[in-house]
């Protein structure tokens, strides 16, 4: 295993140093690169994906990230064992993978008007948290919240600008005739939704 210290290095230096380390391996092996910013993590991850290397990244502290690449043979994701105390981060960088699943335009059961106001207020409060979720999923009645006329668009755009992934179920948009009314985030499908939910450390369903 080779460790590369690219702390304090501006792009593309972390990639250049990592490539040199991979060359030094002269075969299968592991290269760990330390960097101090998420953009460098993303650029390293891009390289690994293009090259077909296994890759995972960890946030060690607010200004320290470790990108581990497995060159050849077993991909790095699979050797993520229990002794590994640090948690995985996605390239957009969240300590815990929290997914918020919004399944209805209203929060809770009871009065509909109240439920609508509660949901608006929930999304606003969510956008003000220090630690943001990785992903917001919208399906069934939830799909109306990401589309034209939703009272939460501004808060959702703010979440998106802060790096939160916003996905709305395409089948649901289609069912409600909202396909061309989507105002924030991307259209998603059931495979993606299943993957997001099963890959989550924490699922919040308001």
């Amino acid at each position, binding site marked *: 295993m080779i460790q590369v210290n690219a702390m304090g290095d501006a*792009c*593309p230096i972390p990639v*250049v140093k990592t490539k040199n380390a991979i060359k030094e391996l002269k075969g299968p092996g592991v290269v760990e690169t330390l960097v101090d910013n998420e953009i460098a993590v993303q*650029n390293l991850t*891009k390289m690994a994906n293009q090259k077909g290397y296994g890759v995972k990244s960890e946030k060690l502290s607010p200004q320290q990230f470790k990108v581990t690449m497995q060159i050849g043979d077993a991909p790095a994701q699979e050797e993520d064992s229990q002794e590994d105390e640090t948690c995985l981060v996605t390239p957009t960088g969240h300590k815990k993978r929290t997914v918020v699943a919004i399944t209805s335009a209203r929060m809770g059961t009871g009065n509909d008007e109240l439920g609508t106001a509660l949901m608006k207020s929930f999304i606003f409060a969510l956008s003000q948290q220090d630690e943001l979720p990785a992903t917001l999923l919208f399906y069934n009645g939830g799909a109306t919240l990401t589309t034209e006329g939703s009272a939460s668009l501004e808060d959702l755009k703010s979440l998106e600008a802060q790096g939160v992934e916003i996905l709305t179920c395409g089948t649901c948009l289609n069912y409600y005739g909202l396909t*061309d009314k989507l105002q924030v985030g991307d259209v998603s499908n059931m495979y993606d939704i299943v993957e997001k939910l099963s890959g989550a450390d924490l699922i919040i369903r308001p």
Partner: protein
Amino acid sequence: MDEKIVFCKGGGCTAKLGAAALSRVLELLPKGPPDPNLLIGYDSKDDAAVYKLTDDLAYVQTLDFFPPMVDDPYTFGKIAATNALSDIYAMGGTVTTALNIVCFPESWDLNILGEIMRGGSEKVIEAGGTLAGGHSIADDSVKYGLSVTGIVHPDRIYPNNQGKPGDKLILTKRLGVGIICTANRVGEASAEAMDKAIDSMTTLNKYAAEQCHKYDIHACTDVTGFSLLGHLHEMMDGRLSCVLHADQIPLFPEALAYADEFLLTAAAQRNRNHVGKFVRFDGVPFAMEEVLFDPQTSGGLLIALSGDQAPGLLADLQAIGLPAQIIGEITQRQNPEILVSQH
């Protein structure tokens, strides 16, 4: 020069703050009462501000400065000035006066500063403007640019967002100068690639703009730090969409080769994070994607005009030696906003 290595730390438009971070700050600024004579200001994310003085005269105001992206001070001065002057042309204006903006370490050889300003001054003269003053600050790293004033007829301003479905999109310079400068910084760019990039970055958009004045331009912007896709996203304005043909887009082939070596800037990744969700690539290789997100220092004009007029303008641009191409067309709003197909 001894300072060569210190001089260039990855500057140019790659040093720009990310659009996402910036727009959050701008949204929160207090706004005074609107001035009806301010034809183009903050709200429109345009290239420069335009203020109407009379019914047939408005002035165009812009400023741009950045750290060096090349080792040679004189070349840096030329590039920084060419880049700053470009915003006037992107608005359809002509250059009148310019002021120097300088940050320079006190302990450094003043001849270096002299070389930077000589390069800048030459470009202002070539633009037909006059250098009228400036301001300099002692700082720990070099930065240089210009505050430029130009004039334009209020009816002949080129907005950046008034394209129409059916319009053709023309790009007047090759893409990839950001990647080439980045590769150069780590010693991986060829001298020829760097020479071609410098040649492009020091070509005034004046010449392209002069050809545009013969046509009915719907929208125009210059491609700089936010990359071709970032500036296209602004041009689409949430109302329009477009289709690009990757194989028609003028670029430096070396940029593709260096992108395949992952010599990528942080700014390109920030651009991808910011506008990637509006873009769908159809059969486009990874390196080409990177070139389309590559921040351009002193990039070309991106022009939208009707399909009838586009071939005429294209022929005129090519006749004066520019590598211009029709790279795509504007459509009605659809999903994705920007579709990039390989052919």
